[in-house]
């Protein structure tokens, strides 16, 4: 089975000053992929502008018909803010890349059926 899920890592800081750059990187890395996993495991800092950029990435994936899943382990500092701003209501959040990959891949296959 071929796995054409794109896994994109956002590491470091996602905030007002870096959202445009990250959105560009994610868009080119995810282009054409039926399923996209955004790995936030190495994200140290995120602000409200960063969370809104993630909302936009989810919307963009939806509009392209691709399925997006996030990886953000519970103990990571970003996790609480993502939940505070209810990002977890629009996109599934996973502990590991493997779990997210399985979820995004399965979901996209389901959509095709």
């Amino acid at each position, binding site marked *: 089975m071929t796995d054409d899920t794109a896994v994109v890592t956002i590491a470091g800081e996602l*905030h007002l*000053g*870096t959202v445009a750059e990250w959105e560009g990187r994610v868009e080119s890395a995810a282009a054409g992929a039926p399923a996209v996993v955004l790995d936030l495991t190495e994200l140290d*800092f995120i*602000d*409200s*502008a960063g969370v*809104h950029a993630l909302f936009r990435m989810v919307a963009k994936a939806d509009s392209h018909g691709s399925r997006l899943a996030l990886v953000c382990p519970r103990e990571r500092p970003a996790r609480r*803010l993502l939940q505070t*701003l209810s990002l977890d209501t629009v996109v599934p959040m996973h502990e590991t890349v493997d779990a997210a990959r399985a979820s995004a891949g399965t979901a996209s296959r389901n959509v095709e059926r």
Partner: protein
Amino acid sequence: MPALSLTISADAGTPAELRQRLDKWLQGLGADERSRADIVLSAWEGCANAMEHAGSTEPIRVDAFASAGGVCVRIRDKGRWLDRGNATRAERGHGLTIIRRLMSRVEIDRRDSGTSLLMCRSLERAA
């Protein structure tokens, strides 16, 4: 613990200096990791608001000081938080929503000479 005072360029675009200096200052007060993260994020959201909406190129001033049982951070800019920039109204509101959720007291003082945002909360000490 003496108060912390720093200025941030209105076009800094990065919380790096604020994160480093405020976090170190809060560590000096014995604040636990979660309190430090909440306070640093709130302070940055205040600065980001000023950067986006103050309509001023004057530096943003950040003062942090210990208060009875907690800490306060005051963020002052020389602008008036104009409605501008690309963010939607909902997105703009979220910075303040976060601050209000993470801090116990928030006061905004808007004047012709600038905007002052005061945020305070109690501190959980590291074990």
